[in-house]
């Protein structure tokens, strides 16, 4: 069977490409510069976008986008297409600044868009925006989109945040207001990823879940739907009436290439102009850097690779065990030997780029001697076969990840060895994505998994979905706390942090939470991912960002250097 990544259902928990850190990124850019690839920078700056949309760009994706109603459950590559067809009210750019899109300005407490208590919202819309079919975009569409997300019959991609909205009122075609049932700061960020859908089309659909719109979408984005060849590609054409910058390209083509090695080959031969999700694999990085007329960029990604444990299992109940396991992991060797030194080691769950990232969290230390002494002190004594035991519980567990993900399998084997050295037995049992990332993971049937997750709420550093005690799916909660982590101090800090709009206060809460979670170690973080992506040298405008899940968020500003 061909490849690992291809068979993955969703990217977040299964991304297998090694990723780069910021510090490393600088080094890598310098190296790229030295090899002559930075030279076009001068040419790049000099060239200006064309007056009329010109040429086309072929974007390679290793998964096939199939969901085109942006409010329905979708994966990252789908979102990669949505960014170009649709618009949110505002978005977070690559620096994390909020930039208005369909809204005339981003509401804040300062500008009065959000009331001081965070409960009343007022959003003014950009006038004169048209849907691709020529109909005007109005506040009715925004209300319709929110209502649809809360419609119990609709297969909504998420109701997180939207379910707090009350009394959505259209004041005028360019203004609407709503109330929140409680203050919720991440809402601003959630709206960055909420694309508006047309009321005049979907409103008439008998069943929005199966409307023809879902396969022939009409949006307000820089590109319009043109054609889909299932299993192969999707073509979008420039929207001449786009309200924002550009577009400068006549067409963009999303090409589906299921195998990462094949995708890299097509990048080499020039069949694709931009190698997007899941990019270039770490083992091809050195070769990619040397390619002529290509720019290879190592950018940060929000995913954190970690060993996630199921704390309801007797082996993991004790903090001492988790601490010992962390001391016993040789993370540095994993990153350097298996991931070619590209991603950056971490001991926490937020990407370093986030404003709430706590740089003072104790770093990870590899110290097997200490690990042993912790286990000895906690009463875990070596039993049969040298495996430690305590009160009839053997320190032995399964670890699972996506089967066929060769890189992860190597890391697993290394950990197996590491932990065996301290008297802990880890058994590897990997499964296909449709198996592991279903109920097995979600309903906490696992012992431990090796997984890469983006813990944030869109671009917001709120990690409630993963660490709140009320977010345990196996106990009926809404969220992703599959490790069944319960700490009421963390509950309070995360809840408080989400309820205030004061960034300084939020930061203090989140720093504290990060320290407690580092102490409790419900999961053992290894590294933050880096994406290795590339474009043809004369393609201008590509900007990787940790605030989006797919770097095709700004194709409207891309163009070919003359």
């Amino acid at each position, binding site marked *: 069977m061909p490849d690992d990544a291809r068979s993955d259902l969703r990217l977040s928990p299964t991304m297998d490409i090694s990723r780069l850190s910021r510090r490393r990124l600088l080094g890598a850019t310098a190296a790229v510069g030295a090899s002559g690839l930075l030279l076009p920078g001068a040419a790049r700056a000099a060239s200006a976008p064309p007056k009329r949309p010109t040429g086309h760009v072929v974007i390679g994706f290793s998964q096939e986008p199939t969901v085109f109603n942006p409010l329905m459950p979708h994966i990252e590559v789908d979102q990669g297409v949505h960014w170009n067809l649709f618009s949110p009210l505002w978005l977070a750019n690559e620096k994390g600044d909020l930039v208005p899109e369909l809204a005339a300005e981003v509401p804040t407490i300062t500008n009065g868009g959000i009331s001081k208590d965070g409960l009343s919202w007022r959003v003014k819309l950009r006038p004169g925006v048209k849907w691709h079919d020529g109909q005007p975009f109005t506040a009715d569409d925004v209300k319709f989109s929110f209502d649809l997300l809360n419609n119990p019959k609709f*297969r909504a991609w998420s*109701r997180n945040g939207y379910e707090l909205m009350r009394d959505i009122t259209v004041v005028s075609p360019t203004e609407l207001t709503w109330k929140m049932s409680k203050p919720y700061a991440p809402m601003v960020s959630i709206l960055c990823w909420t694309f508006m859908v047309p009321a005049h089309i979907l409103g008439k659909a008998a069943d929005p879940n199966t409307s023809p719109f879902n396969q022939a979408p009409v949006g307000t984005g820089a590109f319009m739907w043109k054609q889909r060849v299932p*299993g192969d590609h999707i073509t979008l054409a420039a929207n001449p009436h786009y309200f924002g910058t550009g577009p400068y390209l006549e067409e963009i083509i999303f090409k589906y290439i299921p195998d990462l090695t094949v995708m890299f080959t097509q990048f080499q031969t020039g069949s694709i102009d931009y190698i997007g999700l899941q990019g270039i694999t770490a083992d091809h990085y050195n070769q990619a850097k040397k390619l002529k007329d290509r720019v290879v960029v190592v950018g940060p990604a929000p995913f954190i690779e970690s060993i996630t444990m199921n704390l309801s299992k007797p082996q993991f109940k004790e903090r001492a065990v988790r601490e010992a396991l962390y001391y016993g992991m040789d993370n540095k060797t994993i990153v350097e030997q298996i991931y070619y030194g590209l991603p950056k080691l971490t001991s926490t769950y937020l990407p370093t780029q986030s404003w709430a990232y706590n740089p003072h969290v104790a770093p990870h230390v590899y110290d097997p001697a200490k690990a042993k002494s912790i286990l000895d002190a906690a009463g875990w004594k070596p039993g049969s076969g040298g495996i430690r035991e305590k009160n009839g519980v053997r320190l032995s567990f399964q670890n699972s990840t996506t089967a066929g993900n060769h890189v992860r399998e190597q890391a697993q084997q290394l950990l197996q060895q590491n932990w065996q050295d301290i008297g802990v037995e880890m058994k590897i049992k990997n499964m296909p994505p449709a198996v592991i990332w279903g109920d097995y993971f979600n309903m906490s049937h696992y012992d431990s998994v090796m997984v890469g997750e983006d813990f944030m709420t869109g671009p917001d550093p709120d990690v409630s979905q993963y660490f709140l005690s009320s977010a345990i799916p196996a106990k009926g909660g809404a969220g992703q706390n599959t490790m069944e982590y319960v700490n009421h101090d963390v509950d309070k800090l995360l809840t408080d942090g989400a309820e205030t709009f004061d960034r300084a206060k939020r930061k203090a809460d989140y720093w504290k939470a990060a320290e407690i979670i580092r102490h409790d170690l419900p999961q053992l973080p290894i590294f933050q991912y880096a994406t290795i992506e590339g474009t043809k040298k004369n393609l201008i405008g590509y900007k990787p960002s940790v605030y989006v899940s797919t770097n095709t968020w700004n194709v409207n500003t891309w163009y070919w250097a003359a």
Partner: protein
Amino acid sequence: MTRFLLRRLMQSLVLLWLVSIIGFAVLHLAPGGPLAEFTLIPGMTPAQLKLIAHQMGLDRPLPVQYWEWFRRMLVGNWGRSYRDSQPVLDVIAAHIGPTLELMVSSTIIAVVLGTWVGVLGAIRRYSVFDYLATVGAMIALSIPTFWFGLVVIYIFSVKLAWLPAGNLYTVGNGSFLDYAVHLIAPSVVLALVTIAIWSRYLRASMLEVVNQDYIRTARAKGVPERTILFRHTIRNALLPMITIAGLQLPTLLSGALVTETVFTWPGMGRLFLDSIGYRDYPVVMGILMFSAILVLLGNLIADLLYAAADPRIRLD
């Protein structure tokens, strides 16, 4: 003849029904399911998941789900894909073209080259050519298609830049020549195994015929070697090949699975793999039934052709 056809039709229907039951059971008993895709979305609640399962009809007992599927199939409704909600037949129709294109071209290559190698190997038995062909066939049969495809791409696309590195056509071109150029590498890669099989079988079949009495008789009569070869030997040696061709049909479909992935060919093989990965039950079942029908049809045609070509065979 009519009785034969009717009997075969009845047998085929029973067989199809069995295939559908086994396929359905295996598919649904395999761990995991289409909901895996949704469970990972942050903020997805168990209540929402329940709703999705209900809308997909996954919350009902398996026999009920099978009966629903079966009832719909009887009236020609193959269901809709879970991934993009398109009717299954439309999904298959969208992918069948590229696969057929690949199959037809690779079959032509395989038959022409396989016949040539097989015949030449038989008439020049134990010659250098024959040894080379034997070794070549062994190698061709043991090389993994995936690896061979990548090597072809590496040599002819990356290094020499003679051929495109996969894809059906160049975006924005789509001329006949462009299509044809894109077809070369994948059809040769797909044909490789078939050439090996075909040539080995044909060689064996030829050798069998060469030792028949009627060939010796012809030679004794003074019939020229050319005529012996073309009129008597090859024609008779090709007879069993009809059956082999019929049996090759599923091999071609499964061979396309790998070839299509390497050459980013949007055909049935890749659709099947993707659909299994996503546990897209309606599409997987659709492809299963479709392939089963093709295989049965292939065998039926082979039998009919055999009867037409060999007067000794009576179908009734």
